């Protein structure tokens, strides 16, 4: 999951570099959504995860 979020960021940057702003923004949205999902998932105490 975490590696997937990083991979989405790498993809968004490469797409921006290569001149595809639309796809870059889509990849960024995916990376941010994954990050927020991981954060909310870890915050949920029912998962009983500690930091």
């Amino acid at each position: 999951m975490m590696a997937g979020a990083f991979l989405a960021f790498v993809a968004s940057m490469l797409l921006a570099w290569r001149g595809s702003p639309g796809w870059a923004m889509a990849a960024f949205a995916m990376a941010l959504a994954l990050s927020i999902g991981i954060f909310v998932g870890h915050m949920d105490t029912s998962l009983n995860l500690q930091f």
Partner: protein
Amino acid sequence: MSDSTSRALNASFVLVVCAILLGAFSVQFVAGELPCPLCLLQRLAMLGVGFGAMLNVVYGSSPRHYGVALASAIFGGIVAGRQILLHVVPGSEAYGSAFVGLHLYTWSFIAFLGTGIVLSAMLMFDRPNREVTMAAGRLGLFPRVALGLLVAIAAANFVGALLLCGLGICPGDPQGYALLSWL
């Protein structure tokens, strides 16, 4: 603010983001402190801030690009704030060692707060550039080096996260690289 000034400022901003992420790497590989999931999320948020500035460098400044960076800074600030609150609970120990009197997640919170303020100021004073679209290959040397460094750091973070967490959920208090132990 002229287009060239805006590009130079945003490229400098990307370099500051790179310096922060390289600092996190040095704590991981030099000091040997493995990052927790919240630490990795803060790195992701900092990459998002850098990505917004990168869009400004490549495509010209736009409120949309500043929005990308600001959204990431807000997310990073929330994650860092959450980690601070976890460790101020009486009886709970801090995570990692302190740097200049403060723990890294507190520095991270300060960095995201500062980033939000700087981005808001740039959004107020930077004029949207409608000429737009400059392929990254046609940029000057300084912006290209800054953007190349950011992409390289993002890729290194991907490899690091893959080694640390594998394909599953990251351990709360990592003691080693999960993927290496599986192999």
